[in-house]
């Protein structure tokens, strides 16, 4: 969203030096210097998360709070179509920040906590999001936390390993959070993630984060994982990456994310862009986000999609899926070509390559419900 943020790449998370010491290859991402991979490389890191457990520094993401009671935070529903009254205490929900054209300004996770809401925002969008939120919420009741780090712990062994360090996290069910203690200090942990694996996101003070990661890494089953593998993991899981699969011009209907908008909000049509969204829910949108499985050739973001001679769409994320052991992609195609199994062609380096619409995820999730 915020294009400027891409250019200023001098921000560092509290773990910057830690990443360097661990051999992290640092690259500019959303204004930050972030590790794209460690010496093991993306492939091994990806497979490690699928088989054991990986930890990711995602502290570049925005951690935002709205303090107060329902009266203070309910106006958020004008721009974030989520039924906040029905959201249970400690429950998290994936949803979107809408704009007036029915487009998506960001995708985000909202958690209801004692004393308000916690919201996790995409790094590149966070300052813009905060401005947008301040249009409906009194800024004195909000805070963007730059004193907090965010660590994702993902993989089939995540629960076993984190529960040894912080007893009780195993009791959390998927998309729920709670306050815990680490070293006598509060940490907020949700059972969530963006890899298609079971796992947690731990919001922890910057002063404790290195120690926390070091203790986890003492276990040989735990590896640090970079943003490269995070990208291939989320793509295999069929999850969207904002700025690629979603942008200000794509609507939740086109993005196949109407499930991320609460039923009540859709029925009442009381959020920004609701008219466009509801019209598309009723009559359909002209294009739709789908999973695409190329037969052989890797198709990257920007590859054109054809049906015969007709250009029918574009790839928005694409690469090699290490667990699928083949190319995977997602993109937008005209609605009439969005059925599972529809045969398509992708243009890569000037040549056409066959592919099929594929019902995502490419890799089956193992979330704990």
């Amino acid at each position, binding site marked *: 969203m915020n294009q400027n943020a891409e250019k200023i790449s001098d921000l560092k998370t509290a773990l910057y030096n830690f990443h360097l010491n661990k051999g992290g290859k640092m690259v500019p991402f959303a204004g930050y210097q972030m590790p794209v991979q460690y010496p093991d*490389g993306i492939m091994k890191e990806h497979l490690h998360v699928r088989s054991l457990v990986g930890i990711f520094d995602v502290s570049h993401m925005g951690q935002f709070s709205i303090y107060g009671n329902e009266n203070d935070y309910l106006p958020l529903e004008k721009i974030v179509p989520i039924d906040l009254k029905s959201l249970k205490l400690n429950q998290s929900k994936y949803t979107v920040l809408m704009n007036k054209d029915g487009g998506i300004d960001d995708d985000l996770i909202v958690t209801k906590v004692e004393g308000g809401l916690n919201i996790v925002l995409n790094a590149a969008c966070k300052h813009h999001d905060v401005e947008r939120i301040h249009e409906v919420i009194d800024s004195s009741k909000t805070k963007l936390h730059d004193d907090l780090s965010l660590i994702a712990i993902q993989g089939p062994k995540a629960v076993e390993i984190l529960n040894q360090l912080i007893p009780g996290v195993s009791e959390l069910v998927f998309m729920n959070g709670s306050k815990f203690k680490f070293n006598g200090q509060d940490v907020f942990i949700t059972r969530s993630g963006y890899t298609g694996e079971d796992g947690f996101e731990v919001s922890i003070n910057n002063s404790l984060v290195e120690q926390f990661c070091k203790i986890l890494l003492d276990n040989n089953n735990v590896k640090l994982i970079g943003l490269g593998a995070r990208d291939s993991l989320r793509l295999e899981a069929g999850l969207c990456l904002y700025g690629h699969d979603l942008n200000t011009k794509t609507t939740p209907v086109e993005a196949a994310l109407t499930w991320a908008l609460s039923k009540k909000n859709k029925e009442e049509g009381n959020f920004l862009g609701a008219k466009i969204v509801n019209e598309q829910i009723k009559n359909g949108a002209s294009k739709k986000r789908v999973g695409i499985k190329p037969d052989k050739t890797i198709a990257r973001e920007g590859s054109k999609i054809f049906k015969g001679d007709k250009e029918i769409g574009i790839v928005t994320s694409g690469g090699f899926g290490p667990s699928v052991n083949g190319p995977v992609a997602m993109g937008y195609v005209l609605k009439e070509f969005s059925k599972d199994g529809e045969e398509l062609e992708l243009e890569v*380096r000037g040549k056409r390559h066959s592919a099929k619409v594929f019902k995502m995820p490419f890799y089956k999730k193992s979330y704990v419900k």
Partner: protein
Amino acid sequence: MAEKKYSKKHEWVELNGDIATVGITKHATEQLGDIVFTEVPEKGKSFDAGGEAAVVESVKAASDVYSPIAGEVTESNEAIVSDPSLVNQDPEGNGWFFKVKVSDANQVDELMSKADYDKFVTENA
């Protein structure tokens, strides 16, 4: 076996008679990471020195492989197409990309020696 010569775009060339074998350097594979896809030129295809000749893809990105010398393709390495990880395992041996019948063997002399290439990599790290 002739001495390998190196290009600034991280390809190597080994000339035997008028046939040059081309591949990418160990340094290039280390930068790319795990190679998951390769595309090699068809036999009979010809290109100028520096022309796009093949493609190598890691999990993260696709890169072009250029031919440091002009010529016509006599053979491509199908083994790296069926098993792209061969390029990581043995970049300057079994992980070669293609062979060309060179049109001007003198072009090889313009490329760097191993020592010069290592220096070039260090200076541009």
